[in-house]
């Protein structure tokens, strides 16, 4: 269970990090960088416009985005109110939201994590957070590392920090609640874990 959550989360957060996900075939691998979106505060504008037209087919099972699949279990049918869910156009992952320096450091973190060096990965992510302290995706990645280090308290705190910076972004809220859920579960608190899971599902419904 824990590993399932773990791999899903890292897949989502570090998507595009070459060291984690190999793109062997030509078929599209989710997620693509999102088109640039300029909000009032001017924060979300780093996406690349070039691949705007190549959104992956979300119905084929292999390339189905993690985001539309409920977390923590096999795929289940989605509840039937798609119109009620506002489509979100902000950043969906780190690559949409971070500058090249932070991305380079996150890539290094991913490589270190692959080698089993969780301390080293955390150090790189903290370095990235010194550059972009308000990047929710970096906090999520660091929270995930803490989860893998069995530091459930810090994992939850970092997820909480990410939520406080989310500005309603379901691609932050979903994984943040999943980290919280896994942390509660690891501590044997089923009730809190269920609460977190419900919040996660709620957020994931808004992921388009």
């Amino acid at each position, binding site marked *: 269970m824990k590993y399932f959550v773990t791999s899903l989360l890292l897949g989502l957060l570090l998507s595009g990090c070459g060291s984690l996900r190999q793109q062997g075939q030509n078929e599209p691998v989710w997620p693509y960088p999102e088109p640039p979106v300029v909000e009032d505060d001017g924060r979300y504008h780093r996406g690349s416009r070039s691949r705007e037209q190549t959104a992956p087919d979300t119905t084929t099972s292999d390339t189905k985005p993690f985001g539309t699949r409920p977390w923590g279990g096999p795929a289940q049918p989605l509840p039937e109110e798609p119109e009620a869910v506002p489509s979100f156009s902000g950043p969906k992952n780190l690559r949409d939201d971070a*500058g*090249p*320096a932070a*991305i*380079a*450091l996150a890539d*290094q973190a991913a490589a*270190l994590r692959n080698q089993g060096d969780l*301390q*080293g990965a*955390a*150090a*790189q992510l*903290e*370095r990235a*957070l*010194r*550059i972009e*302290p*308000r990047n929710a995706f970096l906090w999520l990645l*660091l929270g995930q590392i803490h989860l893998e280090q069995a530091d459930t308290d*810090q994992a939850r*705190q*970092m997820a*909480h*920090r990410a939520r*406080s910076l989310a500005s309603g972004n379901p691609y932050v809220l979903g994984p943040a609640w999943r980290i919280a859920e896994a942390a509660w579960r690891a501590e044997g608190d089923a009730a809190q874990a269920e609460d977190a899971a419900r919040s996660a599902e709620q957020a994931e419904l808004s992921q388009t």
Partner: protein
Amino acid sequence: MRQRLLVAGLVFVCLAASALALYTFRLDAELRARFDGVRWALPAQIYAAPLDIYAGRRLSPNDVVHELRRLGYRARDTVERPGTYALRGDSLELASRGFQFWDGTEPARQVSIGFGDGGIRGITGPAGNQVPIMRLDPMLIGSIFPKHGEDRVLVRLEDVPPLLLDTLIAVEDGDFYSHYGIDWSGIARAAWANLQAGGVVQGGSTITQQLIKNFFLSSERTWIRKAKEALMAVLLEIHYSKEEILEAYLNEVYLGQDGPRAVHGFGLASVFYFGKPLGELLPEEVALLVGIVKGPSYYNPRRNPQRALSRRNLVIERMAGDGLISEPEASQAADASLGVRARGDRGTSQYPAYVDLVRRQLQAQYREEDLTSEGLRIFTAFDPRVQAAAERAIREGLDAIEQGRKIEAGTLEAAAVVTSVETGEILALVGGRQAGYAGFNRSLDAKRPIGSLAKPLVYLAALSKPDRYRLTTLLPDAPVRLEMPNGTVWMPENYDRELHGDVPIFEALSKSYNLATVQLALGVGMQDVARQYVLLGDDTKPAPLPSLALGAVERSPLEVAQLYNSIGAGGFVTPLQAIRDVQDRMGQPLERYGRKLRGGPDAGAIALLQWAMNRVMIDGTARSAARYLQPGALAGKTGTTDELRDSWFAGFGSDVQATVWVGRDDNKPAGLTGASGALQLWARLMASLDPRPLDLYGAGAEPTWVVPAADALADTACMDRLLVPYLPGSAPVEWAPCARQSEQGQDNSFWERLFGS
């Protein structure tokens, strides 16, 4: 008879021979034990944070060059050797040094850094590739060595420039590679010279003998000691290779004194005298170091520059004579100045307050002997640029205050703590007016009453109860009379000794009204107020007495910085820390002090408090800061204690927090309020740090136009209206009398949206 004598003689010779053999055997064991386990006492070395360089960072070419100079980089026309740079317009050519960090190796790089738009535009590698991020080697800011102890930077033989080795051997021991520890011809030469001079003027010791002397023996010049030294030198040569002996010598030889710190080895001497690593020394610098070996005190280039210069030039002549450098190189080297840096590039002398903090934090975890001998490498968050800004602000600020207020020069003292709001890292620490002098570290040890710095915690306790208090709740600024359990009566007064009637909560804070604050604290409950200290990361919960509301609680500047950093961090508390990582002497990670987060007060309440503390800057007690900086979106609070003994200011932007204390060491009145004293220093400091603005209407708070004095809604018809944040559902619902509540108001709000007012 003759036979007996012969036997006795034989026995004596045999005994003497075996005694000598035994002694030699013992010496040999002692020697090998010492040399095999050659572990120098290596003091822990403390490093500043490395400078991260990446596109988009707000750094000017000057900022980077300044840092490069601090690290001993040299400006050169051709940038090839590590440790050199060239600034050409808005492009900086740089050959960086590599460094083994706790989280991996930073390679030496040759790059071109482009500047523009107020920051770094990009970094280009030699092949035209873009480098996303790089970091410079970190500056050594100090070491933890035992009292009167040895300090050194270990070097490996292969890292020592050949010119240094050749020169050293040429000058100190020409036959080093051929003798067996003792150089008879050298001794003969020395003896002849001594005989001619009628005293000991020349040593004749080989490098091996000098090493033995440094290792084991005192410096007394007796024949017994000479013999023992010679015997051990031969033994050493039998057991060890020339390379091993030379490497040990390079790290052991005594090369200078820095106060209580003895400078051993060429690795440290290079940093101590020239501020750069061994590999970057120029011929004249090599010559000086080798020249100093003969008498580090006599040829001290700082104290006796003339003597050192002629000694150096003698060595340069020798270098040219032996063909180690060409004649033109030699004359160029001989013309160069000594090039020795001003004292205290490293050591404990330059940033004693910060090094003191690091040592105290380490002492909780490591044994003293490990700190002074195990060669730990301590990586900290220390930011030299922030430290320089803080020291300058204190120095110039205190001078200006003393002059402006006719205070006797030199009587005021100060301390400052600068932290990174987001990371909780301590960036700079000033322990006193003369920052470079070790001594009373006021930033840690001056525990003083905090006065009105305590007020934000009262207001935080109140704003955490949105069903009872909002920013415009009206408080009575009315007399307070409290009978204390011990029978005394407490009757606080306002600073201006006046009563201000009913005032909105935020104004009571921004104008620092004592009576309204005490009324509020009593309404909230002192237990709740005291609890805020714990919530914000304070170690000890203060006693919940009414006087706590006005700051009758003693804290050091560092402890205040923790409280204010937590307020700045918006609901998440990060324990302040100075140390990032600890490595052992081989560069293996020992301990990482990772980022820690703790849940703090409610983020919404903190957002409201930050807004109120911004009013302190805009039209409250700190409005005079506008002389130095745009207070637009900064927040802070003044603090003044009884009879103007302590002057405090603490405040922050979204990225950096600073706490400043001004007062006198004898605790006599300094004659300064928080605004006329500490604030002036704080504003100078913050102006040079260029802090990022706060989000004053964040964390879900709803900005609403109100008339504060009426605690009621306003529209454009109201003259005294203000945009105040409220937590959802807690804004006033009544309209102020001035409001027209008409469609016109709506038109106006549409107009204003376009206009941006």
